[in-house]
């Protein structure tokens, strides 16, 4: 019996507004909101369901986690205004809370390892990157300059040292 109800909750979970989820009117006062959240917590806190099978317990946890997020948004006056606006625009609630587009996560490119990836220091990494790019273009002098900057931060980096030897050899060759 309960299981069906849990499934029904999961099916509508992403579609419910935070107001509906917590069971408060749109103009609920902070006190009403808090009270509703406490009632919600009594029903859905995973600790109140320790006797359930694992999958049901996790499903209830998921409902509760939506509730804490909803409470966080509605509890904060600024976030609540933002949320109300997104509702008025018809933006799905779940997207409204995560719409900000973020800078890219640091990646580790596959294939041949890049010099940059061997560099631990965040400061040195851009230098290593440009050194490698410049070396590829054959601009050995500039590459050496960039690389020595990188080496200042990581004097023990073997990959930097290796590239440095390579560049030095090229520069020697150019002189000749």
């Amino acid at each position, binding site marked *: 019996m309960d299981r069906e109800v849990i499934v029904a909750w999961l099916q509508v979970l992403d*579609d419910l507004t935070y107001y509906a989820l917590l069971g408060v009117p749109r103009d609920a006062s902070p006190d009403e909101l808090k009270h509703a959240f406490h009632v*919600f917590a009594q029903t859905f*806190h995973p600790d109140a369901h320790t006797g359930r099978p694992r999958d049901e317990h996790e499903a209830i946890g998921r409902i509760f986690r939506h509730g*804490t997020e909803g409470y966080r948004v509605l509890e904060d006056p600024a976030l609540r205004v933002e949320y109300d606006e997104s509702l008025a625009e018809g933006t799905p609630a779940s997207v409204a809370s995560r719409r900000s587009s973020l800078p890219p996560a640091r990646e580790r490119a596959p294939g041949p390892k890049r010099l940059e990836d061997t560099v631990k220091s965040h400061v040195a990494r851009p230098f290593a990157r440009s050194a490698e790019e410049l070396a590829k273009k054959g601009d050995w002098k500039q590459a050496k300059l960039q690389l020595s900057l990188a080496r200042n931060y990581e004097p023990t980096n073997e990959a930097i040292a290796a590239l440095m030897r390579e560049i030095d050899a090229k520069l020697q060759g150019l002189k000749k």
Partner: protein
Amino acid sequence: MSVVGIDLGTTNTVVACVRNGRVHVLGDEQGRRLLPSVVSFHPNGDILVGHAAKARRAVDAKNTIASVKRLLGRTWNSPELDKARARFAFEMKDGPGQGPLIVARGKEYTLPEIGAFVLKRAREIAETALGERVERAVITVPAHFNELQRAATKVAGRVAGLEVLRILNEPTAAALAYGLGKGTKERIAIYDFGGGTFDATLLDLNGNVFEVLATAGDPFLGGDDIDDAIADRMADAFLVQHRFDPRSDLQTLERLRQAAEQVKMTLSSQDQAQVHLREIAFGVGGAHLDLIFGLSRAELEKMTEPFVERSFKVTQDALALARLATSEFDRTILVGGTSRIPLVRRRVETFFGAPPMDRMNPDEVVAIGAAIQAAALTDAARRRSIPPPPAGFSVPRKSAPSFSDAAPQSSRAPSSQELSVDEDIETQAMRRDSIPMSSHPPPATARGTGPQSATPQSSLPTSTARMTPPPPPATRAPSPSSPTLPRSTAQMPGRPSAPSSPQMTPASRPFGTIEEPVSRSFTGAGAIPGVASVPSPIGAPSAPEPAPHAVPIPPPPPPPAATALQQFISSQPPPQPAPAQYLSQPPRPPVFTQSMPPPVLIDVTPRALVVETAGGYCDTVIPRNAKIPCERTRIFSTAHDGQRVVVVRVAQGEEGGFRGNTYLGEVELSGIPPAPRGEVSVQVTFELDADGTLRVSAADPTTGRQAMALLRLTGIAAEAEIASMRQRMEHSGPIVGG
């Protein structure tokens, strides 16, 4: 088999247990309820824990380990380890991947192992007192503990042979001990000044609901610091007198610290204290030089003042987070031995404008709360009924979810073709190389995939669940000004006519069908655990006014939890003929009564959880002070054209630069279809459970590929290592208490 609550403190450890609805703080064979958190390795091979080990500090500081809690979950390069190396006489070295090692009598121990010795002794004390096996426990930690420290504490518990049911925040435990069974509505400030750490936690208590509003802490502020200040003054006095600095010898310094602690404690009840330490050094002709040192309370207060001041800075921080003023609190609770200092009490009273609660033993209140939580979590019958979801109050969505969509991802058994749960990054990386992309089936979690793509569910057949007709499709949410906007009050029609069957009522009923806590609160017994008092009569004068609530929550049917609780209480084993003198005297009043459901704790995460972004910066996924359990998703994109793999590196803290925060670990998502940079989006989801344990997953919404992992925390032992530590612990010979 009993479950216990353990307060693993910097200075002392306390173990408590709920028996027949009452909390008992368990004492050792001699009735002592504080177990010093000290481990000493004796030359004869014995491992001493507790009082005997503490006594060894003064004579064998090199092989006596105290304050291990300060070090748990810290890395070799952390400032805390630097401090410890300067401060303690025992030897430490950098371990291979599992954090620092402690070297004593030629053997190496990990920090969780040292913690485990203390926990094992606590477990033995409990087993002797209760007369039965103890295999499960709730262990408390300071609220400001980060993920690594929590994980290390959990490892310590497991090495000691305990299943750790929950890592619970100490101030929250204290609130539980104070508030459960009162049934009141109060705003509480917990001022937790312990031996090594300080925490300020603010909560709302509402019947059986404990909502943490904010917490702030200082990991470097504790009673030890006051001891050090006194010891410094002693050393200065000796130096002036005899031109010898006792600090030059760590063993002597350890003696000074112990004497300093005594002086400090004496001055909590007296105005003057004096110590006489013999043979601190040897003078001309081998004459021994003694240290005679006196201190007045006024002088001590002057020395203590800066530390107390810092504690209020932290408290202010918590207040700011909660956007509250000191005047808005009904109660202040003091926790931790340092809160016994009269100056601290006075300052707390001035700060909050009311005298703090002083009826509870600040040393024991945390263990009592832990025991209550342990009992509540092991109540096997806990299954609150869930009312149907509200219908028709939703935001628009593209497609209706299927059951497989709705099913929690983590309940799926990991198939061999999936990037699976709970695996090391290395394994994942290996899989990425060995399995061709095309062999991955469309993941079950992708929107719109049918249930058949779901991997087998655990125990229940999904078909049963799928038979349930889904609620009406979601309708578009009207704008706030629209007259068609359904008010939530409309969702709350009458209560079910048959109160005895609250589960299955017409689908329009909201969930608010559980017993409303405030109205019940007046019938709740005013029992305060930890205080030997008779439950207060119904309608005690301290009862507050009911909560203002315009939302008409229907009057509830009898709470299912109360029944569950009855079962819980009756399911407890009959009282064993335990040696009564080991149980705390006098027995405390019942914490669980039949009219009072078990507690619901809504705690917060003390630090933000962040993801590294390009350029060494970071973005917050879960902010500081977020209520847990919680879950948040953020969308990131790739940094390079044609990037196939993203690495989600996770840290904890509020610094803008990634490296300024505590690095936790990483999750990798591979098989991203090649696309220009910025065009691919990667959904990163953080899921924090009630322990504060983090699960991180990354998904590519276009392909549905998913990488999911419990972060393999840096410096935290892997399963195999825990198992071998546990083996070592079992063969380490007897632990000598005494």
